[in-house]
């Protein structure tokens, strides 16, 4: 093994960086109330570094100084930290199973409340809206789409997405069992498309922080996919309790394809609705 000339100094840098990340999360919590202290360390660290570089800075401490003194920089950081779902009908199989196994159950209710927790720019919210519309359930549904980031909710409210994405979304939609022509749902506007206003009629976009806010209603369906992967185990447990408390009896919880209830203390409170897709019914 060749010893490296600057052997000690980089190790020191690694330890220092760990100190900086702790300070960073503490400082933001103190100053702004956003609590990233229990975010999953490796992805939080990556996202913070990306913002450090985008701001033309060289250290996490430097970024802390900037976001403490400049709320606009804090807003940019927040946007980096709140983007999660990246595609409409991401994991088409999930939506196919939702149609086949969840929709029949939902038909038994006269009124439906759906919570899309951590909705970011709304791709998943509108996917659910389209699905429920095609199932004939949308008119008796209210979808609450929440995110901790107000600015990103404005993007979701605009219903506007890049036209370049429509090819992928259309393929997903078809694979997800969509029954119409996907282009019926939007109108082109330059290099963007705008989804129909009627899709947003029963959607309430609202600011809600899964880490620090409480349950605010009881829902028949909660979608929280690929949001908790950014949290550590302890915070995941906290959010699982929040979601559990927010579900009606026999309410349905939808998670991301590589998230498991197996690791959660709430796993016995749910029963899997499918062998592969992460759809769970609250049974206890």
């Amino acid at each position, binding site marked *: *093994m*060749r010893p*490296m000339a600057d*052997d000690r100094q*980089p*190790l020191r840098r*690694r330890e220092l*960086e760990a100190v900086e990340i702790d300070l960073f999360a503490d400082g933001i919590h103190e100053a702004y109330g956003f609590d990233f202290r229990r975010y*999953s*360390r*490796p*992805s939080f*660290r*990556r*996202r913070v570094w990306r913002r450090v570089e985008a701001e033309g800075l060289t250290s996490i401490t430097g970024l802390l100084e900037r976001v403490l003194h400049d709320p606009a920089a804090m807003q940019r950081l927040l946007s980096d930290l709140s*983007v*999660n*779902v*990246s595609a409409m009908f*991401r994991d088409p199989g999930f939506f196919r199973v939702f149609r086949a196994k969840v929709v029949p159950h939902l038909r038994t209710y006269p009124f439906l409340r759906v919570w899309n927790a951590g909705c970011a720019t709304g791709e998943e919210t509108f996917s659910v809206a389209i699905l429920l519309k095609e199932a004939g359930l949308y008119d008796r549904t209210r979808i609450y789409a929440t995110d901790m980031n107000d600015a990103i909710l404005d993007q979701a409210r605009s219903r506007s997405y890049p036209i370049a994405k429509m090819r992928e979304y259309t393929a997903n939609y078809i694979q997800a069992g969509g029954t119409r022509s996907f282009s019926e749902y939007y109108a082109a506007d330059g290099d963007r498309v705008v989804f129909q206003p009627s899709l947003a009629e029963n959607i309430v976009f609202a600011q809600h922080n899964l880490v620090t806010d409480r349950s605010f209603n009881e829902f028949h369906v909660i979608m929280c996919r*690929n949001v*908790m*992967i*950014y949290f*550590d*185990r302890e915070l*995941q447990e906290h959010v699982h309790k929040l979601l559990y408390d927010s579900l009606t009896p026999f309410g349905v919880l939808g998670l*991301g*394809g*590589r*998230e*498991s209830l*197996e*690791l959660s203390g709430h796993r016995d409170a749910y029963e899997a609705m499918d062998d592969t897709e992460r759809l769970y019914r609250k049974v206890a």
Partner: protein
Amino acid sequence: MGCGIVAIGASWGGVHAVSAVLGGLPGHLPVPIVIAQHRGEEGPTGLAATLGRRTAIPVVEAIDKDVLEPARAYLAPPGYHLLVERGGVSLSTDEPERYSRPSIDVLFDSVADAYGDEAVGVILTGASDDGAAGLERIRRYGGITVVQEPGTAERRTMPDAALRLSGAHRILTLDEIAPFLVKVCGTA
């Protein structure tokens, strides 16, 4: 300097190469293995089974917050980045890096940060320069770096890029990699 984890990155031709490396490892390897193999987002999910066919090491497609256990290989799922913290994995759906998700750089960077001088990084065949920066990070933090001998790789672009940016403690043929890992990490 001990060995706490082995990270393997591969792209074009990687299914064969990763299988060959895993095939040479004993079922009682005392450390976990994490793998980023480039793959299509829509692809079939049988890759873990394929890679696990000829090895004593169980290969699983990682689930978020899986606990890392010795003598087990954790494969990055399609459409996700695989990241590591001490003792466990974390997934992310952040943007692809260098057009790749999973990205080898993302995985190796997290391995370097979590395991420091107890990390072992292995770059195998591929037609990409993903992994070079990650391997360099592992090396800078005191870990051990291995690159497949470019002339013996199905595609030499990735080993070449890794050697250019990071260099390696060992440049080995596929057959030599598993014995070297056993030597470095022991057999408990």
